[in-house]
């Protein structure tokens, strides 16, 4: 009998998170796949003092920073791409509420790779020679800082390069397009660094837009870049990345992206956003109601919907995925 790792989002946060932990997500992109719904639940359960490891900022980090749940963060990009600056994260940094350690996007991927491989360091041929190397927000009084990206000598050429420290977050909440009950997962769209993150983190919880039968994985094993053997729990969560995009599943919700970022630009706006979009729903169906059934239908019929076609025959209906989650809790 296959394992059933399906649990509710609330249960996943209860079991796998704690105040002050190193929490990783956003190993996707500011406008793409990220387990934002997990961040909402972190706020609902009032987690605080998080050390956030996000390859690039997303609306999740933007929200967690604005709402005061994060005190330290490390990322390679702190904006929202085409949607501009990330107002929540930006304000928190400017006000000194979040200390952000800067790296580049490649550096973050390499640090996750080093965590995955359990290396003591990973060679750095980028970020050296710039203030990414010399300035360390976590150790502000040392300049130029020799500890953030220390120099080291290549034993073959004698040439100096740098070294990045590995990342091994306590938990990674990873958005995937499709997962089965054992935690085998398929991502559509760029992996960004979800593969490396899934190996670097001490625990992995998946948020899947849809649950599929394991037969789907056996048909497409080369697509299963995250195997169940490294996954603790699976949460069935349609629109887990909303308002961001999930290629093949749904488009970016442009209106909500803008409204959310605008709200996070002020304390009042943030409070209203948390009230209306974080604390307002009781369960998964309530969350989907909040997004709006019409909007869901509209966002789901974008130009990339064809990317999902090969897998549709294995998608479990909503009620069945919910029932399996209940069964797993019993």
């Amino acid at each position: 009998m296959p394992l059933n790792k399906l649990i509710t989002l609330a249960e996943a946060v209860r079991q796998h998170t704690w105040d002050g932990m190193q929490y990783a997500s956003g190993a996707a992109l500011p406008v793409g796949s990220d387990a934002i719904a997990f961040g909402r639940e972190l706020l609902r359960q009032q987690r605080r003092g998080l050390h956030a490891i996000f390859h690039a900022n997303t609306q999740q980090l933007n929200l967690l920073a604005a709402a005061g749940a994060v005190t330290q963060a490390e990322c390679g990009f702190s904006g929202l791409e085409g949607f501009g600056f990330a107002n929540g994260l930006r304000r928190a940094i400017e006000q000194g509420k979040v200390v952000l350690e800067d790296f580049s996007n490649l550096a973050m991927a390499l640090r996750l790779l080093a965590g995955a491989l359990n290396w003591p360091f990973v060679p750095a041929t980028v970020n050296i020679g710039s203030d990414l190397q010399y300035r360390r927000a976590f150790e502000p009084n040392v300049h130029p800082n020799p500890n953030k990206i220390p120099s080291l000598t290549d034993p073959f050429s004698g040439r100096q390069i740098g070294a990045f420290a590995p990342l091994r977050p306590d938990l990674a909440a990873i958005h995937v397009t499709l997962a089965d009950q054992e935690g085998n997962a398929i991502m559509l769209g760029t992996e960004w660094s979800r593969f490396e993150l899934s190996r670097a983190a001490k625990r992995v919880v998946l948020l899947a837009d849809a649950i599929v039968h394991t037969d789907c994985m056996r048909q497409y094993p080369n697509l299963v870049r995250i195997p169940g053997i490294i996954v603790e729990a699976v949460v069935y969560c349609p629109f887990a990345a909303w308002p961001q995009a999930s290629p093949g599943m749904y488009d970016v919700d442009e209106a909500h992206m803008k409204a959310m970022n605008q709200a996070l630009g002020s304390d009042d706006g943030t409070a209203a956003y948390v009230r209306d979009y974080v604390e307002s729903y009781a369960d998964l169906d309530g969350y989907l109601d909040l997004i709006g059934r019409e909007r869901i239908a509209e966002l789901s019929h974008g130009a990339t919907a064809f990317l999902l076609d090969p897998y549709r025959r294995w998608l479990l209906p909503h009620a069945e995925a919910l029932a399996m989650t209940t069964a797993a809790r019993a």
Partner: protein
Amino acid sequence: MSTDYRRQEMMAIATGREIRDGELAIFGVGLSMLAGYFAQAHHAPRVRAMTEGGVYGATPVGGLPWGIECNRLAVNAMSFTSALDALGCLVASGRCDVGIIGAAQVDRFGNVNTTGIWDGPIGASYRPPKTRLTGAGGANDIACGAKRYLIMVSHEPKRFVDRVSYITSPGYLDGGDAREQLGFVGSGPSAIITTLGILRPDPQTHEFQLDAYFAFSGIEEILANTGWDLKMAADVRVVPEPSAEELAALRRVDETGMLRR
């Protein structure tokens, strides 16, 4: 020549002209993507375009993508891999021919700041910026690894500073052979393309100097908008205005009219 075009369109076209057919090229979101896909639509049909997310062989559809994983770009990709692959194996490795990056601030040696704006120098002790920007993203990786790269930036005095307060992406650092000594596989910024003209580095000092100005601009306007004592190249020239074909190609790419606002 067409005279009915915007300054930003001229900047995008001038940038696109720097991209050669067949090159492996990395574009960011926004202006740089428009410039790159303009080149593909106009004179570089076989440019091998990639993003730092590892999206290969895609051409945006339905308007400028909101981000690298925007479905406008995901819709017709031929390959999706990862940041490690794109920025590591293809860019930091020295394989990528050309990258395009933006800048909040750029200095006389082509160093770029996209991290933050401080009131004055940061000082011995790091402190939060007055205005936090977007950070390095993949720009530092492009600046270190791409064979050459282009900087696109609006030509304003606050952006063209003598020395950026934070080097996010290294240009030629302190000039001369300062960059070479770090052993980067990439050879540095080959041009700064602005809303007024084009700056290129002196081959020895690596200080950027005025190479050419746009027809609607001039040396005086450029000097007035540059925060350092900008030197002139030996043969400062006027950049040819967009041809009708160029403008048509750019506007096909910029179908939502971002550059015409």
